[in-house]
């Protein structure tokens, strides 16, 4: 018996020389722990082996009482569990193979024997033999049925159960005859039996799934041989059942099935073929993926050729069938999207691509189609469409609001226009009616006293003429203001215009004791302007300044170039000049500052209003600044008025500067 790594070997040899040599060799390898017992006779050897404690037999092939081969046979037969290593006199390969075939574990030649190789050979022989036996046991175990059921007559049921641990003890459980439902040792024979198809007398090695009492599943290879004797008088059947798979394999199979099922249920594409015969549909084959998309199995489609056209959504059917007709008649490949009614009643959207297939004669024999489930895409599309529609509504609402706003804006502008017309009317009334009143009175005087004194008469006529002039100038200014005049623009440096304007009112300035200080930037770029119009603006502003300084003062005029800022280009609505100052573009600035009374804050916003005046009747018509603004607007510029920090007011005019000439 093996104790740890040591080996108990039994040497069968009649040759003292051989025995001595082997003992010497093994004694020289004490770590190998191989003990050698010897016997000269085969009978003695059998006794020692059956007594136990022999791991291995070393057989000297040259035995006198028979051939070594005979002894080998006897040993293999009577002590199959003990490996045999044969020692031969000559190294003969043919003989060695022969011996191995007859069950020898190894064959060693006496002449080449050597300590280490002998030890290794014996050890290998033992291990090899052990492994072979293990293998054989496993093989045999696989062949042993787990259960044998014998069915006799109607009720008789006998079951031989071989549980794995019982296989070698061969405990036999016998179910009592006449009581098939009775349980013996926890085995339900009736349940076992019901797993066999009773109607089928013959089951040739079928794998049957069986539910175990603990809820698990066992797969059994079941063989039910035909009953012996006359089939017409069946007296019983028997079944041999054997577990076919180990539990992990079952789990694997299940997992595979589940995965396959999942795969099949989640496929979004499948292929189908419609076979044609003489222009008519002969058969339809749908790939297994059809189950996931349509809910119908390939078999259902095969047995019911019109099923396919029936499950097309009624609203799409005409279109789909027309496409198919085109395909059949003209060979036009189809690529359409339509709805299907699934077996569950739900609607699936599919893309259906069809390609015709022809035989060598050009006859249509079939068409192949690819069905792709696009339901999700369609849902997304519909959601997108809905979102888009909503967005469109929102946009159209916005546009509508914008239009309403514009309309309101226009109304506002209109109202403002009406307001300015009202203001205009009132202004005109006041400015014209006053001279008219003078005229009226003058005429009355002339009527009343045709022969009055000439001096009074002259005074009256002078007053009347002056009144008529005033009325006329109001009307003319108004015409200037309202006419969309074309400006005769030329490239002019504003410094020149300022000089001209100053020249025009030079006498007035002197009379009013107003000093003018100019600070005009040299090398200013030109502006496109009508000199007389800008002159008019400057005269207006200078006159205003003069009026603001009844006791004289100083007017400072400055010109310079600056880049138009955001605050410089504020446009008023209704400005349709099309030319205006843009942010970041150079502008020529004219600044007119006086040392006058300044402007009350509440009046500042109205300074450019038509007929807005702070002056006494006859001195200001409320036209000057309004007309000036109009003129500057026409030049695409900007005019502002403010109170100067140190007192007095400051008027700033910006005009777009021309690019420098090369």
């Amino acid at each position: 018996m093996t104790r740890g790594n040591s080996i108990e070997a039994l040497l069968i040899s009649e040759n003292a020389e051989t025995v001595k040599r082997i003992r010497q060799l093994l004694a020289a390898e004490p770590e190998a722990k191989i003990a050698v017992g010897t016997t000269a006779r085969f009978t003695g050897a059998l006794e020692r082996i059956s007594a136990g404690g022999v791991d291995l037999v070393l057989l000297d092939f040259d035995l006198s009482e028979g051939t070594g081969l005979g002894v080998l046979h006897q040993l293999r037969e009577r002590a199959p569990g003990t490996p045999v290593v044969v020692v031969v006199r000559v190294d003969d390969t043919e003989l060695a193979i022969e011996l191995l075939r007859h069950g020898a574990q190894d064959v060693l030649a006496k002449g080449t024997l050597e300590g280490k190789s002998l030890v290794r050979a014996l050890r290998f022989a033992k291990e090899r033999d052990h492994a072979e036996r293990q293998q054989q046991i496993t093989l045999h175990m696989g062949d042993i049925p787990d259960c044998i059921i014998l069915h006799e007559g109607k009720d008789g049921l006998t079951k031989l159960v071989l549980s794995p641990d019982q296989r070698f003890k061969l405990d036999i459980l016998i179910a009592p005859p006449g009581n098939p439902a009775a349980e013996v040792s926890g085995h339900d024979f009736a349940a076992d039996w019901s797993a066999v198809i009773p109607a089928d007398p013959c089951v040739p090695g079928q794998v049957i799934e069986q539910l175990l009492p603990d809820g698990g599943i066992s797969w059994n290879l079941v063989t039910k041989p035909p009953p012996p004797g006359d089939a017409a008088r069946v007296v019983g059947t028997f079944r041999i059942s054997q577990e076919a798979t180990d539990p992990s394999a079952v789990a694997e199979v299940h997992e595979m099935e589940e995965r396959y099922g999942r795969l099949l249920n989640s496929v979004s594409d499948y292929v189908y073929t419609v076979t044609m015969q003489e222009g008519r549909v002969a058969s339809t084959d749908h790939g297994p993926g059809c189950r996931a998309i349509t809910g119908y199995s390939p078999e259902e489609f095969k047995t019911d050729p019109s099923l396919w056209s029936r499950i097309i959504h009624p609203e799409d059917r005409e279109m789909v069938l027309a496409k198919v007709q085109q395909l059949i008649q003209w060979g036009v490949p189809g690529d359409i999207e339509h709805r299907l009614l699934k077996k569950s009643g739900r609607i699936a959207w599919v893309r259906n691509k069809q390609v015709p297939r022809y035989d060598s004669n050009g006859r249509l024999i079939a068409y192949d189609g690819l069905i792709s489930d696009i339901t999700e895409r369609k849902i997304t599309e519909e959601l997108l469409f809905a979102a888009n529609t909503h967005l469109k509504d929102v946009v159209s609402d916005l546009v509508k609001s914008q239009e309403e706003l514009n309309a309101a804006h226009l109304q506002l502008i209109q109202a403002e226009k009406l307001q300015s017309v009202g203001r205009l009317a009132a202004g005109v009334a006041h400015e014209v009616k006053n001279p008219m009143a003078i005229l009226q009175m003058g005429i009355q005087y002339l009527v009343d006293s045709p022969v009055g004194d000439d001096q009074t008469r002259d005074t009256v006529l002078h007053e009347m003429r002056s009144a008529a002039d005033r009325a006329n100038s109001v009307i003319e200014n108004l015409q200037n203001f309202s006419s969309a005049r074309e400006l005769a623009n030329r490239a002019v440096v504003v410094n020149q215009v300022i000089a001209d304007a100053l020249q025009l009112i030079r006498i007035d300035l002197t009379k009013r004791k107003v000093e003018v200080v100019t600070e005009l930037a040299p090398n200013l770029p030109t502006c496109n302007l009508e000199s007389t119009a800008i002159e008019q603006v400057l005269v207006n502003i200078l006159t205003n300044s003069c009026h603001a300084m009844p006791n004289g003062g100083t007017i400072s005029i400055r010109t310079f170039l600056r880049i138009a800022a955001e605050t410089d280009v504020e446009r008023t609505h209704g400005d349709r000049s099309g030319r205006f100052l843009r942010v970041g573009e150079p502008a020529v600035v004219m600044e007119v500052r006086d040392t006058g009374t300044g402007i009350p804050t509440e009046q500042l916003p109205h300074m450019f209003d038509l007929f807005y005046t702070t002056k006494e009747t006859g001195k200001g018509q409320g036209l000057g600044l309004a007309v000036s603004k109009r003129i500057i607007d026409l030049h695409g510029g900007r005019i502002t008025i403010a109170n100067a920090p140190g007192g007095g007011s400051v008027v700033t005019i910006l005009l777009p500067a021309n690019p420098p000439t090369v």
Partner: protein
Amino acid sequence: MKKKRILVVDDEAGFTHLLKLVLPIYEIREENNPMQVIATALDFKPDLILLDIIMPEMDGGTLAAKIKEEPLLRFVPIVFLTAIVSSKEADGRKTIDGHPCLAKPVTKDKLIECINQYLPD
């Protein structure tokens, strides 16, 4: 019979001058500076005041209120004579702040009619 005294207040000297020439039947005093009106009126003691409305420094409405505050002037009738109303509006029945109102330009007859209507007896 003593001429009725009329104080004409208007910043337009041309107008007041002509009015004086046209209405010799009344004793007319011109005043072109609204700030001087109270002093002039206290001095002149008019039987009626013709008052312009749109004037620099003080408008006719404010001036009328000031006149009514003066104990010696409060009973002097005031007639507005202004270009800011139309003749249709001011046919003699329209009033501003309780005072009758005439529109410029006005005829001599209309003016006399109105003055006589409001002159105290």
